[in-house]
């Protein structure tokens, strides 16, 4: 389990992470989403012992990470900017990984390289950006660590390869109980991959939830009544957002969808429709409910009020 308590990291006057707290359980795929500069990469670097926290602690399986090889041997990091030895190929890099990671599996390395159809003897410098990401992923997954950290890794992969990597990740999680922590600035990228999601905003995790709960806890309802009405009509429900134009109102409601439908249906609405919410919308509304304003451009032609 990865545990962060009051984790703070500063770069000069810039506070990248401030009093961050989180628990990442073992055997899950944990997604970390946030805008550029939110602190995602900093968090991953702290998780991998690259940075030393200015304040607070971060531990994996109960051990502090920084400069602690016994903990770090359970972690492998695939950063946003990849590193390969100069003029090296996959074979050479596998030797580097093998010498550093005690559980590195050459067998798996050969299997993965074959699956990705990468030439192990070809210089990595001649690889495309996507191929280099595949190479880094192969090496990381061959290290057979308990924790794998991907920083914006899927961004450079084509859909086929992305699915291939995801499949491998699922296998690792299911078969070995491995934990994967993935960062992205795109929720769509993560929503069908992760078990848990957290939103990092201005150096802190402002929201963290199970993806399945998140998707079912909020729903969007469109209603219209013959008579005039306002938000107070639905006082028994937890409404996160209420936008009315003419007689039609769009509501974001937290709670049991069937129960809400029954309750409003009993009031003879002219229109009653349950609309699906994307994970992104769920996030935005949850954030808004928490009081975070992103000052984002108005949605849907100025509907939000």
């Amino acid at each position, binding site marked *: 389990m990865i545990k962060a308590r009051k984790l703070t990291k500063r770069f*000069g006057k810039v506070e990248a992470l401030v009093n961050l707290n989180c628990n990442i359980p073992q055997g899950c795929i944990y997604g970390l989403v946030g805008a550029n500069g939110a602190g995602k990469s900093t968090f991953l670097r702290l998780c991998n012992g*690259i940075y030393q926290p200015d304040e607070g602690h971060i531990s994996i399986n109960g051990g502090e990470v920084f400069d602690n090889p016994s903990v*770090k*041997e359970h972690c492998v990091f695939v950063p946003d900017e990849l590193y390969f030895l*100069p003029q090296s190929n996959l074979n050479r890099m596998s030797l580097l990984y093998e010498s550093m990671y005690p559980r590195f599996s050459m067998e798996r390395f050969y299997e993965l390289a074959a699956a990705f159809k990468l030439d192990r003897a070809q210089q990595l410098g001649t690889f495309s950006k996507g191929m280099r990401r595949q190479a880094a992923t192969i090496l990381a997954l061959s290290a057979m660590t308990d924790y794998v950290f991907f920083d914006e890794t899927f961004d450079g992969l084509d859909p086929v390869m992305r699915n291939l990597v995801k499949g491998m990740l699922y296998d690792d999680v299911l078969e070995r109980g491995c934990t994967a922590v993935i960062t992205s600035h795109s929720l769509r990228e993560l929503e069908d991959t992760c078990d848990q999601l957290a939103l990092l905003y201005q150096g802190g995790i402002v929201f963290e939830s199970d993806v399945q709960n998140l998707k079912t806890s909020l729903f969007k309802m469109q209603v219209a009544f013959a008579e005039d009405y306002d938000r107070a009509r639905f006082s028994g429900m937890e409404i996160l957002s209420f936008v009315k134009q003419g007689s039609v109102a769009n509501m974001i409601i937290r709670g049991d969808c069937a129960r809400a439908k029954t309750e409003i249906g009993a009031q003879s609405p002219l229109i009653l429709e349950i609309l699906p919410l994307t994970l992104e919308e769920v996030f935005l509304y949850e954030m808004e409910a928490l009081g975070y304003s992103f000052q984002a451009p108005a949605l849907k032609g100025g509907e939000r009020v």
Partner: protein
Amino acid sequence: MKPYLESVRRLTRVGLILFALSLVASAIVSIQYCTALYYGNVPSMTRMFSPLIAFIYAGGIVLAMDGFSFLNKRSDSDFYHSLPVSRKKLFWAISLAALTWIAATVLGSVLLTVIVFTLTKTPFVQMYALVAVPFFTIGAMMVFAACAIAMSLTGTTITGLGLTVLVCGLLRFMQFSVARGIVANTQIIAWLDLPWYLTPVTNIATGQIAQLLRPMLRQTLYSPVKMLYSAVVAVAQLLLACVLFARRHSELAERGAKNPAIQTAFACSAVIPVVMLFASGIITQRHVSIPIVIGVAVGIYLIYQIVVLRTAKKVLFSLPWLLIPLSVGIAGYFGTIGAANVMQNDLPNMQDVAYVQFGGESRGSEAISYQQYMVSKVRFTEAEVRQYAVETLRDNVATIQRSGYINYPYDEQSGYMLTTQPVTFVLNNGRRISRVLTFFNQITLLSYCEQNSDFYEAIRALPPQDAVCYLQGDDLFNGGFLENNRILSAFHEELPTTAFPASDSYRYYDPFMQYNVDDEQHFGSLTVAGYVGMTRFWDYYNIRVAMPKTASAWMRYHNNRSKGEYLELMQQMMEKSAKLVDSKDYFSISMMVYNIPMSDGTKQAISFYFDRSSYEAAAEMNDQLQPIINELAAIMQRSKPTTNPNDLCVFTNWSGRMHKEDGAFYGEEILMQQVPTNGNGMFVSGGSIYYVSDGSVIYGGLSGAITAYNPCYRTFSATDQARVIEILRQWKAVQDEYNYTVYGSKQENGPSIGDASVATKPTPAPAG
């Protein structure tokens, strides 16, 4: 082990390049040296392994830069710091890998050098090969460690390199500057006399640069003590680098320094060397003014700060910090002068001095004489020596304080027999004070020293014959060595039977230079070179009449090499010199005549010379001499080679350029023969033997000049001998007059050349 092997693999690329370059350079330098036309001694360590001197710096820096290159790039730094290996372990893995490559390169280069020397049968000091491996490895590791410190403190290649120079050399440069100031200010303390904390060669990495600037330091650089000290420094530097590496913030990558304060500290460090130049007196006020020094210091500081801080406001705010290096400069200036004064006035009392030692006046030379090496170990406890040394020290200091420098004007009574000797006073409490003293009378000093029996033996000591590698320029593997060795063996046999020291450096100085009388007449010097342990020696043994076997072997040696003296040509050119055809024609002859009977009953060796040219200063006198010289040339045709050092014999060198009346050159056949083949004028010298590159002993130059080398020692029949002595008497009279007229030299009232009744002595048995 795995991280270490991985680091070795990672450094393979630059390691192999350095290895190959070092081997190629070592091979080229060695082959070049071993195939050189002439060298008279085993090479010094600096000469033998010069490519490795460059490797100390190139290897150390390049391997550190490559090994820790990941610190300068964010992505690389992240990768390495994410690996499951502790920072300390990672540091030592890289450092040990670099050490492996450095040691392998040094070992490979040394082995290759030894192989080249062995295959080409070139003698060398075998201990050097053993010492070179740890020496250059430690040196390179010192530089590596300095670079590792710099890399741990900065995050870019440029700042890393700059800081490497500062880490490696700032303290040593300050020390060097202070030492230079003390040497200049005291005037009686040489580089070799500085206390250990000021000697620039204790650190063998920076010591290499110091020895290139001050070659005398070379003699003390390659010592086990300095290697040990440097190894300790290298380990300390590595430990510091390890701590810095472990504490280094990964986010420093791609940034010059952690913050502006550190950056300002770097800028101040960069300014210090400039102000120290002024402070130490290396640059005196005669050459540069204080405002210029301050101006240059400010300029360097501003340029550095503008580059790294980038905003005028920050640069301006950092300006007050410039006062720190300027203060260091001022402190250095007064500190150096103060230290020099203290050291200069450190004058021991005679009763405090346990003994004194004499390092030898040529101790800073490439190779010292064996006798000097032996004398340097002698401890003089004799009261007279200690007293004379202490008094001289006090007198020297008083003279410097009075006149500003050592100034002993010529004194006719004393004969101006000054001698400058490095002296070490060892006090009763064990403290050592080393100074270079100017003794007023070298005969007095020698007479005091000779009271010491160890000294008496030391100046007569000869190196073991198996330690000799070169004789007259012939090395052990040359045929000439065996023949030369007969001379040396005879010298070994005969020297103890005489009162002469082995080296003339330790003989009593004769103010009237009357060295060529009776037994003291000398035929030349036997050049002997070799090594004992790590010490190389280069001796000259004068071959005297007092050593008849040696002298006879010496004469045979020369006579054997004198193939064709062209005496007829000499006679023709000499006769023609009375009337020169061309304005550039000339003739010059010098003759060393031995065993000339003198009016006081002695036999002397006297040098005679005769020069004719269009520009001669005293043509009238030469006209007087011409007939008798011509007669002597005719007698020379009848002379015979001799190996008897007691014979009245002559050793002649001549050269000339002479046209016949028809415009042809004298010796045309020689010129025709040699110009096409030896137009480059290459000579091969073996001791005092000279050959043209085709092996002959006469050289014809492009200008038409002919030079004859390697004459025989020739003697005359009894009849001719009487006439020769008469000719020499007249020649000397004219020569003395010529010297008096042309050069204004003093007419001396010494003995004149006597009559022809040369006392005969039995011919000694040939040596060998």
